[in-house]
């Protein structure tokens, strides 16, 4: 499959509409969302409210994880109920690597000695590669099935990893693994809340740009057709299975990188990051924002984390209200926040 960009390709039915431009309402909403996400923590930082900077980092990373999931669910039509596996694996890569770097012990002693590292660059690379590998295995088995089977199998595989992390005592088991010192980058100070936020923000913008570019490429067109009508895609001489599998792997890589950063943000990783509630929350964020909308996950993450923070401050039982809102959105407001803010997608 040719993954290169073809800018002369005319918009085709089924392709998502072109990304942000200044001229339409959707472009304004998209730029507005990014601007709010960037400016609010900047202002908070200079007013001395570090709490809000970390909150913005949380929104950014959850949004990034959901951008990854959106590639699978929204664009690829693969309803993965197990993306917590990649989110958590990314987190554990950061945690385990930092644990061994702290102890000066190797991660693996055999067949080759791999030392621990507290370098974010090494951790990101490892998280992306390992999540890609895991998704390749899970996807290769799960994508043989469709519909409800796919949903349940991705859920079951994620649970398998959850239970494994829960009962494997070396890295804390169900108590989780603390990261005592935030992992580092050359030159810049990752311990500074604003610097760390900007790293996360960079990650989110990159993953949005990557998704947009993928969906404008020939590969994206094939993925869209695999979702809409895989028989037609097969008739055109392109096998749907490898297309889906590659999209699934890229999706997991984005979510995994978000997970690695998320563990560093919290200074802690535990099986909670792998639990099916996490998978559910990521799906909820994608749906709240609007399925298959490039900026949907960002809108959904802002709404979700704000609800969690505001309602969670009012009542211990905030998930009851989350449930009611979600039920309402699914039953009556199918197009999500982005549908409401930016109008319906033209080609849907």
């Amino acid at each position, binding site marked *: 499959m040719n993954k290169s960009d073809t800018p002369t390709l005319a918009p085709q039915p089924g392709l998502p509409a072109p990304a942000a431009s200044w001229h339409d309402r959707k472009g304004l909403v998209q730029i507005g969302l990014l601007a709010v996400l960037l400016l609010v923590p900047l202002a908070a930082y200079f007013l001395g409210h570090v709490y809000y900077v970390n909150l913005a980092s949380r929104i950014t990373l959850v949004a990034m994880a959901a951008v990854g999931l959106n590639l699978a669910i929204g664009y690829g039509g693969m*309803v993965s109920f197990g993306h917590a596996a990649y989110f958590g694996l990314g987190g554990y890569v950061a945690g385990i690597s930092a644990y061994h770097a702290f102890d000066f012990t190797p991660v693996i002693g055999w067949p080759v000695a791999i030392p621990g590292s507290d370098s974010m660059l090494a951790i990101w690379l490892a998280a992306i590669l390992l999540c890609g590998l895991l998704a390749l295995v899970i996807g290769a088995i799960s994508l043989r099935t469709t*519909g409800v089977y796919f*949903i349940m*199998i991705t859920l079951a595989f994620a649970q398998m990893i959850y239970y494994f992390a829960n009962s494997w005592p070396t890295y804390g088991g169900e108590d989780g693994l603390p990261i005592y010192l935030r992992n580092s980058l050359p030159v810049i100070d990752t311990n500074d809340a604003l610097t760390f936020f900007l790293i996360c923000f960079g990650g989110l913008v990159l993953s949005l740009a990557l998704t947009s570019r993928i969906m404008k490429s020939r590969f994206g067109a094939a993925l869209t057709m695999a979702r809409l009508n895989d028989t037609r895609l097969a008739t055109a001489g392109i096998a749907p299975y490898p297309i889906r599998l590659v999209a699934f792997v890229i999706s997991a890589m984005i979510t995994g990188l978000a997970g690695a950063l998320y563990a560093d943000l919290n200074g802690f990783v535990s099986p909670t990051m792998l639990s*099916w509630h996490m998978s*559910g929350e990521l799906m909820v964020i994608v749906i709240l924002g609007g399925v298959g909308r490039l900026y949907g996950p960002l809108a959904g993450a802002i709404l979700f984390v704000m609800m969690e923070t505001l309602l969670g401050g009012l009542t211990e039982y905030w998930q009851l209200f989350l*449930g009611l809102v979600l*039920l309402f959105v*699914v039953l009556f407001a199918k197009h999500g926040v982005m549908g409401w803010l930016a109008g319906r997608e033209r080609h849907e």
Partner: protein
Amino acid sequence: MTLLIEQLINGLQLGTMLFLMASGLTLVFGVMGLINLAHGSFYMVGAYATALVTATTGSFFIGLVAGLAAAAAVGALVELIVIRRLYHRPHLDQVLATFALILIFSEGTRWLFGSSPLWLNPPALLSGSVTLPGGLRYPIYRLMLIAVGVAVAVGMYFLITRTRLGMRIRAGESDREMIGALGVDIARLYTLVFAMGAALAGLAGALVGALQSVQVGMGEPVLILAFVVIVIGGIGSIKGALYGAILVGVVDTLGRVFLPLFFRQFMSPSEAAGVGSAIAAMLIYILMAVILAFKPKGLFAANE
């Protein structure tokens, strides 16, 4: 040898309880095409109602009837208010709406009854143990659970193959529009089937609740095991749910006991316990992956 037999019976007992959960799930999927994550909530409702009524009346059996009735009533209500809007929606919407229902049920229960578990003990009549042939002593209550599971399996077989309701259920599985055209009230049939599935889940919750504790979130691990069961058995197939449940119950139970013992042959005891329990926790998922690699639609695929 006694250990093996004891664990086999334990596995069978887990399997029969999983069957109670899985048969409702698979029936709802087979007839209505609905994937219902909130099935674990009915398990919890059944256990809570049984624990509360048992505590007030002092009779486990009255409690059990109340638990069944409460789960069926809640199931019917949920079907009328939410679920029937979802039949024609994509699976993604069904997953999310029923996920929302889990949040509502779990947090609602926590709000009403608090986070601490309720106590529910098996009735005195069934609390002893008996000596099985071979000298193994085994709790009567657990044997009764197996008996209940078998009775439900036999009952469902007769319900589905020999009664008018069963005929309609089978007709609904193969052609919804047609049985509607023939004058069967589909909406009522769906509510009935859904409530029946909820009652079975409530029964499982009440019975298992007396062995473990009755608390918020108790339905979730069982729900996911039940998913594995119906994926292995073939979604929509009750026969598949039965075989899948017993397979999963036995493999899971034996794995948890014997894998740590197996690894102790060539590892230190603490390491063996860690590795053994970690792999045992993954065992049924590996089993599922292997089965799906050969039979992507499960062992007894329905609606082919």
